[in-house]
């Protein structure tokens, strides 16, 4: 509880206020709201995970903060400044890695350093530092096509870090990885954040991943895209994979999963909820 109180004192880093995003339907001139009146504040250094059914506007929300999608009304402020376009203060990690395929691993990171204006002579060493941060070494000269998905995403994270953003925006970055690689990347990300803390907005479909990584899980719903609820994650800060088996973790996971199920079916199946609560109670007792 104490840690939560302290966090509340942290200044607001990302301020999303009454954000509405409408897309034009191709063909006719109609617009369709992908995001309706969304408000969310993220504190400095906080890790917020966003979960929600497909098409509920998670990517839209993230892209708005990145400055890749324009707000139809409302605004996004980062460090008090209105977001008007992409900027180096906000790094993005995409699900499709988006590494430049014509550049080697280290050149991808150097690209980022070059855009930041790091002097030529320092770039190679700096780049190696960022690759080390995500647990990559010895693959500097490999081309992206020869890398596994997990390694590609490590490079992408290193490249995002190399721009020295204060905010990291991650859109299902581990969504395409197999279970083992995913877990390793989660641990690698937590480690990188421990060494180099950043404010993170992280979209995922995986409730377990959301809880494991974040300080707060935000649940979104569709039609129209909006924030339905949020749940603080009050687990210890230095997390290890084993935490996923803890009683608290499992309880939180079943609670959020249930909320998501309700949102996705659109009906509040109280009977099922009650049954589920009983099941989680039983599980708790078993664990004890």
């Amino acid at each position, binding site marked *: 509880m104490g840690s939560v109180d302290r966090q509340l004192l942290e200044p607001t880093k990302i301020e999303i206020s009454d954000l509405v995003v409408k897309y034009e339907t191709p063909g006719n001139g109609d617009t369709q709201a992908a995001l309706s009146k969304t408000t969310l504040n993220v504190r400095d250094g906080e890790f917020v995970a966003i979960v929600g059914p497909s098409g509920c506007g998670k990517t839209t929300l993230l892209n708005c903060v990145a400055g890749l999608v324009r707000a139809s009304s409302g605004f996004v402020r980062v460090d008090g400044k209105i977001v008007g376009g992409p900027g180096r203060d906000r790094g993005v990690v995409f699900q499709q890695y*988006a590494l430049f395929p014509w550049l080697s691993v280290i050149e991808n990171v150097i690209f980022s350093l070059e*855009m930041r204006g790091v002097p030529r002579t320092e770039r190679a060493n700096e780049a190696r530092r960022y690759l080390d941060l995500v647990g990559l070494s010895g693959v500097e000269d*490999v081309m992206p096509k020869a890398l596994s998905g997990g390694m590609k995403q490590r490079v992408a994270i290193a490249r995002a870090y190399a721009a020295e953003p204060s905010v990291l925006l991650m859109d299902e970055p581990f969504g395409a990885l197999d279970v083992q690689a995913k877990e390793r990347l989660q641990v690698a990300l937590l480690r990188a954040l421990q060494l180099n803390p950043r404010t993170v907005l992280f979209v995922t479909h995986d409730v377990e991943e959301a809880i494991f990584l974040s300080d707060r899980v935000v649940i979104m719903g569709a039609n129209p895209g909006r924030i339905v609820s949020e749940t603080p994650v009050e687990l210890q800060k230095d997390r290890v994979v084993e935490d996923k088996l803890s009683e608290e973790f499992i309880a939180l996971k079943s609670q959020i999963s249930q909320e998501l199920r309700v949102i996705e079916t659109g009906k509040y199946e109280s009977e099922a909820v009650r049954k589920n609560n009983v099941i989680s109670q039983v599980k708790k007792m078993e664990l004890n």
Partner: protein
Amino acid sequence: MSNTEKFLEVNRNQDSVPNTKITKQHNFRARGFAVIYRSMFIVSLLSGIVIWAALSVLLPKDVASPVSVSQALGTLMTNGTLPIDIAYSVVRVAVGFTVGLVLAIPVAFALNAVRGLRNLLDPWIQFFRVIPPIALIPLVIVFFGIGETAKVSVIFFAVFLTVLITTYQGIRMIDATLIRAARVLGTSGWRLFAKVIVPAAVPSIFTGARLGIASGWTTLVAAELIAASHGLGFMITQASQYFDLPAIYLGIITIGVIGFIFDRLLLRVERRMISWADVG
């Protein structure tokens, strides 16, 4: 190679993906396939010649035999006409191709960058692409006379349109996520163009170039209908007037072989320059 090995070494310790055993087996198998593929080329060449020989026996009036074509080759090589014809044609195709390529690439970029320009030019591109170059010959003669410019301009026309259309489509298909990734790193304007859009477009430029050189050769015979006195197209046209069947076949085969060599050279350059992409 050493990089790949290094990579495999690291890969074993880190993210799960390829099990090294499988990878090695795969390499071994891939090498086996490479041998088969290479021998396929020879098999295909030999069977082509066999089928040709068989046809020439079955249809002696329509198909020149491999022997008679070899004899024509010997004669035309020793009297020096074939090398000269080859030289004329290669230079014409090379000049038409180079100018076509060099002009088509910037236009392809411009069409992608400026939507207004695209709407302005698209109908004309569609209009001209359906016109066979041979139909333009009378106009070409009116504009450029009957000299080398006229012949090269027919080839240029074909190459330009082919490269333009292919490259334009390729640039349009550049992965939007790559451009987004560059933009969020602070890249914009000319730097975005030079450091991301151009390299990402290189594979489609090569595709355009390979199709362009093919259409250059395809158009050669038409181009050399314009008052030529040398060249492979001229050679075929002239031989057909005397109904010199072996010479006609020789001309056709020579064009095919040179076109094939050009394509392989381009492919080699392409493989070297863009080893990062999966070149077929």
